[in-house]
């Protein structure tokens, strides 16, 4: 594949007609030329090469996307361009030429001039990238002043308001004095985009600018970013793990794997006819609307298919579906409501209906996906089902037992039947305990078996989640995110539960790992006849896991039905909006089977 620079002159010519060029630059001369860039990180075990011989060009006004999983070096490349690597990181070779100047060897003072003024930067996490102790206005004014856009107080302030307005913050004047914590995630990202574009830079580097946001917000922000960069002919380097998003937004795509560029070229071409095996795998694993429900069959593995379907299995499923209608549901939720009171000061409070009168049922062995944006109440609902949060009113039946009136000891018994897997595989495992201890803890708590039988059960569980049994002696920090999530699943399965509540259980994982975990969940479901309550904001994931879907908005279930019905025929505007917001929804993906 090509480690050689990619030229995308043909792409440029299309866009040139549309834009008025605000930067006096030659459109046929690359703005950024990266050649053989190598970056190393000093660790206890010596220098680790994170980036090896990366070369590519960015032309004026062009949008280039770098795609890859975490650890592939895509963020390191972005930070390397403006020399903002972590303290133990260093450029060990190659050059980053920006308008002919090599930034890799530039002096600090020269870098200060380029950063912000010529190259803007929009970071990944809007929550942690604004200083919490300074007002938003202060932080924007600071950028305006540093880049010499205005000097006297009045002009600086006026320009700062303008910057925020351009970034889509309508009531900027009023919000200048507010602090970051008073802004929503989407609003903060607008502030960061505003800061990045404040000095009208020639290149904007956006490092996963929307991965921390809801799909619908993501769409709005990206549309806005695209409009702004097109209007000003700003080149955009977009770093993302989301192939669909990259293909939708960028003219040129660079696929990175283990610190190297494995494939590069025009976006659609890569998506439709990928050449490198890694790209093919990426495309095959990315869940999209066109995907099918993953079925838990072991036969599929032999053929190397990760998410295939076969006719016999489908038929069996239809049989099962018929039988289900007669069976009593394992989980049944009736008129569930949770009201929080929010303090308003002056001893007053206001009720917030986090979950508002919802009802659903999950038949045995099936998956119900609870879908919605953040704040829609889906996690609160899951917490109540798990008994971690007390409902304000309504009933939850598990196998016919009503949790609402259950005593402590009854609840304790019920918990055996129902286990959670949480979103963050880094936060949900105790770093001080070995994997074996983590998995066997539920057994100890519920006094199941003796130490020998628990030992055996740990082994069995690790095998079930396809981890080597030697892992039992290791600690969470020695495992990757995917392995940790397998451990979390093993822990959930330890007590042989009937129901597993998966709260955004795959959202923090890379696509390839995500596909493996989803397959594992499907296998376990068919093997152990598990019932899943799957909480997620990602509709593409829902497509491959859910039998039934309930869409939540502001605490209410606004639409529910079978997965096929919802995806083919969404009734409410809200669901349609969610479906449309999935990146890459309108793109025809290559068939790589």
């Amino acid at each position: 594949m090509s480690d050689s620079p990619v030229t995308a002159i043909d792409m440029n010519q299309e866009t040139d007609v549309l834009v008025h060029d605000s930067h006096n630059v030659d459109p046929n001369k690359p703005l950024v030329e990266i050649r053989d860039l190598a970056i190393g990180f000093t660790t206890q075990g010596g220098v680790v090469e994170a980036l090896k011989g990366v070369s590519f060009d960015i032309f004026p006004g062009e949008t280039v996307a770098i795609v890859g999983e975490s650890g592939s070096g895509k963020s390191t490349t972005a930070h390397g361009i403006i020399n903002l690597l972590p303290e133990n990181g260093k450029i060990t070779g190659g050059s980053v030429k920006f308008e002919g100047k090599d930034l890799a060897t530039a002096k600090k003072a020269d870098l200060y001039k380029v950063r912000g003024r010529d190259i803007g930067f929009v970071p990944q996490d809007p929550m942690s990238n604004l200083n919490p102790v300074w007002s938003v206005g202060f932080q924007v004014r600071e950028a305006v002043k540093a880049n010499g856009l205005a000097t006297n107080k009045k002009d600086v302030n006026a320009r700062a308001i303008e910057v925020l307005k351009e970034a889509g913050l309508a009531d900027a004047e009023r919000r200048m004095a507010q602090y970051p914590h008073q802004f929503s995630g989407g609003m903060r990202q607008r502030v960061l985009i505003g800061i990045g574009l404040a000095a009208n830079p020639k290149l904007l580097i956006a490092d996963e600018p929307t991965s921390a946001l809801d799909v619908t917000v993501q769409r709005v922000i990206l549309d806005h970013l695209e409009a702004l960069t097109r209007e000003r002919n700003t080149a955009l380097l977009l770093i993302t793990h989301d192939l669909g998003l990259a293909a939708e937004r960028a003219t040129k795509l660079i696929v990175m794997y283990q610190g190297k560029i494995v494939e590069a070229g025009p976006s659609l071409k890569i998506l439709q006819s990928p050449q490198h095996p890694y790209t093919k795998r990426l495309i095959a694993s990315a869940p999209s609307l066109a995907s099918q429900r993953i079925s838990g069959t072991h036969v599929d593995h032999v053929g190397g298919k990760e998410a295939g379907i076969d006719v016999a299995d489908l038929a069996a499923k239809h049989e099962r579906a018929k039988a289900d209608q007669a069976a009593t549901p394992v989980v049944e939720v009736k008129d569930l409501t949770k009201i929080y009171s929010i303090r308003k000061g002056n001893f007053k409070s206001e009720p917030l209906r986090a979950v508002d009168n919802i009802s659903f049922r999950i038949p045995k062995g099936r998956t119900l996906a609870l879908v919605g944006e953040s704040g829609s109440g889906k996690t609160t609902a899951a917490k109540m089902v798990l008994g971690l949060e007390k409902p304000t009113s309504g009933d939850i039946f598990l196998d016919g037992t009503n949790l609402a009136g259950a005593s402590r000891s009854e609840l304790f018994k019920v918990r055996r039947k129902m286990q959670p897997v949480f979103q963050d595989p880094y936060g949900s495992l105790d770093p001080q305990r070995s994997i074996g201890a983590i998995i066997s803890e539920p057994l100890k708590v519920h006094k199941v078996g003796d130490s020998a039988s628990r030992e055996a059960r740990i082994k069995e569980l690790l095998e079930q989640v396809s981890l080597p049994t030697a892992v039992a002696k290791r600690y969470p920090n020695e495992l990757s995110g995917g392995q940790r999530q397998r451990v979390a699943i093993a822990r959930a399965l330890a007590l042989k539960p009937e129901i597993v509540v998966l709260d955004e259980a795959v959202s923090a994982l890379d696509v390839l790992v995500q596909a493996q975990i989803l397959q594992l969940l499907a296998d376990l479901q068919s093997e152990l006849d598990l019932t899943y309550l799957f909480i997620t904001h990602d509709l593409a994931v829902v497509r491959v896991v859910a039998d039934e879907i309930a869409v939540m908005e502001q605490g209410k279930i606004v639409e529910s039905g079978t997965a096929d019905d919802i995806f083919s025929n969404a009734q409410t505007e809200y669901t349609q909006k969610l479906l449309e917001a999935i990146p890459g929804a309108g793109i025809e993906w290559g068939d790589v089977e």
Partner: protein
Amino acid sequence: MLTYILRRVLQAIPVFFGTTFLIYFMVFAMPGDPIAGLFGDKTPNPAVADALRAQFNLDQPFIMQYLLYMKDFFTGNLGVTFSGQQVSDVLARAFPVTLKLVLMAVVLEFILSVVIGLISGLRKGKFFDNISLVVALVLSSVPVFVAMFVAQYFVGIKWGLAPVTVGADTTWGAMFLPAAVIALTVYVTGMRLMRGSVIESRQADYVRTAYAKGLTHKRIVPVHIARNSLIPVITNTAASFGALIAGTTVTEGIFNIPGIGQVLYQAITQSEVPTVVTFVTILTVIYVIVNILVDLLYAVLDPRIRYV
């Protein structure tokens, strides 16, 4: 905000009564007869002793003594010491001296903590950081009184840079040496706290974003790194303010400073209940006020903290 302050002040009321009661009880329960102690080796005339007992309410049962004391306290009569001075006069003389000493020590401690902690944090693992750790360890392992004698010997006697003892001359300059010694023996905790939070905030995402905005190192260090690291240091300094006011007895003894430490020491050895209780009560009130002020300062330092 106002509700919060009101609540904190109301919370201070039980603290006030609790401490005064406890202190009163402890001094009362101390062995020995304070009146007999007053006369040293001589046996007092029973009539005189009784008169003195009546004057200091020592003939009343404990609870009555406490209530009578409280009544006097709130009517502005802080009582009389055994030597016949008004407690309020003694307080007015001794208190400003100690306050001056501790204020100076705390300001010095804060400056040392912030400056050395900041540089150490920015140069983690480098020469300055290592040296500052060794120096800090040495200073904090030396007992206060040893450090004071060493300072008196070298700075006061050998080099003649500062008066050896303070005595009646309680100016800022005269008390600089003891204040500096106190600061040097207590700044370590604050310095290490500052260093730790500097290391943390130096790697924060918003610092990287600040560089990406085009800001220089010179601006980022004070505005985005030091500013964000101050909260733990301020908490620590405030806590040490209270501890130092109550703990100046040794310093005041060695440097012969006529502050509350000395007065309190004498009052305790002579079981002078009103003097001890009044002083401790004032200390408690100061402690509570300082803590409320610090909690309010948090909101200034970190806008995410709100009081409801």
